[in-house]
C-alpha cells in the first residue's frame, strides 16, 4: 500500500555514496590524505587512483573522502545548531505575547539580512579560518529559519486544549514544549532540516572555496575546486569530481526534503 516516493529513494541513493565514503574515511583511506607523490602527479582516474591524482601526486579519492567528511560534519553540526537554538526560540515567540516577542522577531530579520558568507568572513577575521567558524556562521543563518517554521507550526498547536490540559496537569513550559508541542510540529521541522542541510553543504563548499574554512593542506571540497580550477583544461577530473560530490549531496538533501514533505504532510 505504501509505494515509496521515488524522490525519497533517489535522494537516499544520492546521499548514501558520499556518506559511506565519509564514514569510511574515519577508519581508512586508500592513501594518506596529504601524502605527496610527485612521481605520480596529475594521473587521470585508473585502478590504483579511482579519482586520479593532483599536481602534488596526492590521491584525489582520499582527499575527497576527507573533504566529504568535513563537509557533512559541518553541514550536520550547523543544521543541528540552528535547530537547537531556533526551534525553542520559535516556540517561545509563538507562546509569548506579540508585543513582548517583537524584538526577537526583528532580531531574526536582522540575522536574515546578513548573508552567511559575510558572517563567516567576519568570524574568520576574528578567529582565523576554522571549522567551528563555518559551523557558527551557517548555523547562525539557520536559527531564524527554524525559529520561523517552529513559530508558525506551534501557533495553532498552542491554542489547542491539550496544551491547557497539560498546564492543568502541572507541567511546566519546558515539559509542554518537549512532550506536547515538539511531536506535533516535527513534520515541517524534519523537512526543513533536510533542506537546510543541503543549503549548509553548499554554504560550506562556498566558504571553503573562498578560503574561510580550515587552512590548507586540510582537504575540503570547496578548497579543491579553488585549488584545481586552474588545471581544468589539463586535468578536468580534479574539478569535476569534487563538484559532482557537492552536487550529489545537495541534490540528495533536496530530494529527500521534497519526498519527506509529501510523506509527512497529512
Amino acid at each position, binding site marked *: 500500500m505504501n509505494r515509496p516516493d521515488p524522490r525519497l529513494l533517489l535522494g537516499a541513493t544520492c546521499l548514501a555514496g558520499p556518506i559511506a565514503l565519509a564514514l569510511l574515511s574515519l577508519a581508512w583511506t586508500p592513501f594518506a590524505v596529504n601524502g605527496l607523490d610527485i612521481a605520480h602527479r596529475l594521473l587521470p582516474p585508473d585502478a590504483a587512483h579511482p579519482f586520479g591524482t593532483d599536481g602534488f601526486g596526492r590521491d584525489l579519492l582520499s582527499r575527497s573522502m576527507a573533504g566529504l567528511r568535513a563537509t557533512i560534519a559541518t553541514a550536520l553540526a550547523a543544521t543541528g545548531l540552528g535547530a537547537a537554538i531556533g526551534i525553542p526560540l520559535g516556540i517561545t515567540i509563538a507562546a509569548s505575547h506579540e508585543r513582548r516577542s517583537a524584538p526577537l522577531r526583528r532580531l531574526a530579520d536582522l540575522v536574515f539580512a546578513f548573508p552567511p558568507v559575510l558572517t563567516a568572513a567576519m568570524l574568520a577575521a576574528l578567529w582565523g579560518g576554522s571549522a567551528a567558524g563555518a559551523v557558527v556562521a551557517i548555523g547562525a543563518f539557520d536559527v531564524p529559519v527554524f525559529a520561523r517554521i517552529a513559530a508558525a507550526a506551534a501557533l495553532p498547536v498552542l491554542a489547542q*486544549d*491539550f496544551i*491547557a*490540559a497539560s498546564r*492543568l*496537569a*502541572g*507541567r511546566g513550559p519546558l515539559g509542554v514544549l518537549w*512532550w506536547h508541542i515538539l*511531536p506535533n510540529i516535527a513534520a515541517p521541522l524534519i523537512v526543513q532540516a533536510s533542506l537546510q542541510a543541503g543549503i549548509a553543504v553548499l554554504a560550506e563548499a562556498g566558504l571553503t572555496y573562498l578560503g574561510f574554512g580550515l587552512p590548507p593542506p586540510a582537504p575540503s571540497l570547496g578548497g579543491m575546486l579553488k585549488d584545481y580550477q586552474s588545471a581544468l583544461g589539463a586535468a578536468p577530473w580534479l574539478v569535476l569530481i569534487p563538484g559532482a560530490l557537492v552536487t550529489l549531496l545537495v541534490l540528495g538533501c533536496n530530494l529527500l526534503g521534497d519526498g519527506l514533505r509529501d510523506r509527512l504532510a497529512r
Partner: protein
Amino acid sequence: MSEVLLEARDLTKTYGGGGLLSRRRRARPALDHVSVSVSRGETLGLVGESGCGKSTLGRTLLRLHEPDSGEVFFEGRDIIALSAGDMRRLRPEMQMVFQDSYAALNPKRRIGALLAEPMRVHRRRAGAAWTPAEIAERIDELLDLVGLNRTHLQRYAHEMSGGQRQRVNIARALMLSPKLIVADEPVSALDVSIQAQVVNLLVDLQQRLGLTYVFVSHDLGVVRQIADRVAVMYGGVIVELGDTDTVLHRPAHPYTAALLDAVLDPHLPFRRRASAPPVVTGADSDIGCRYAGRCANVAPLCRQRRPELGGQDGRMVACHFPLA
C-alpha cells in the same frame, strides 16, 4: 455543604486590548467585575449565549487565563497571587473537562500516556513517590469508574468515539483526585444519546467523590439536570444568579426569560411570545443596562443607569424591573 470552596471577586478580563498601533481601539470586556462563589459539593451552572464570557469565567477561575484585575480564592487562598511554582503545586486540586474532547488530547500520544501524565508530572515535581505500578493501578481504577477498559490505553485519540474521548478526559481530570472540576460545555459536542450518558456519569462521579462542579453550558436543559445553582451571564456580567429551580421556573431577568423561550424542554415552562425581541448586535449600551438594546421591557432608566446584581432568598438579579 455550604462551606465556600471557590470565590471570585471582581474579576475583569478584556481580550485584545488595543495597543498603541492596534486597529481595534476599544475592546468590550469579556468579564466585567464578576463576583461569584461556589460551595463545596455543589454544582454551579454558568449559562448564556456565545461570547457572553462564561467560558472565559470558567478558565479564569482555574487561572488558565490571567484576569486583568480581581481575585479568585480557592479554599481561602488567592490563586491569582500565587507564583507559577505554587500554582503548579495547587493544580491537582482543580481540573477541567473541555468541550472539544479531541482537541483536549494530544493526537501524537497514546491514551495511556495521556492518562498517566498528571501523576508522572507530579511525581517528579512534588516528590510524591508513585511507582509506575501505582500509576497503572490508578489508571485501572479510573477506567473502571468512567466505563472504559484497558484496551483503550494503546489507542490514539482519533481512534476513539467522541463519547469515549470525553470519558478519557474526565478520567484524566480525576487522576489527581481534584476537589473542583470546571466543565466547559462538556457534552455540547456529543450526540444527544451520548450527552445523557456523560451527564449521568458526571452526576454519579460527583456523588461518589464529593466533587464540586462549575458547569459551563448554553444548554438550559442539561444545566437543569445537573446544576444546584445557575448564573446567567450576558455581555461579561452575571445578570441573574440563584437556585436552579427558582431561576429556570420563575426567571426574574428578561434575558433569562428570553433564553428559556428559546428552549424546547418539556420540563421547563414554555411561554409563546407574540414576537421575539429583535437581536440588535453591537447595540449593547455602555452607560445603562447592557441588555437594554435587546430588552422587550426597556424603559428610559435602563439606558441611564446600570443595574447592580442584588436580591435575596437564593436569587440575585441585575435588572431595574425584574419579572419576578
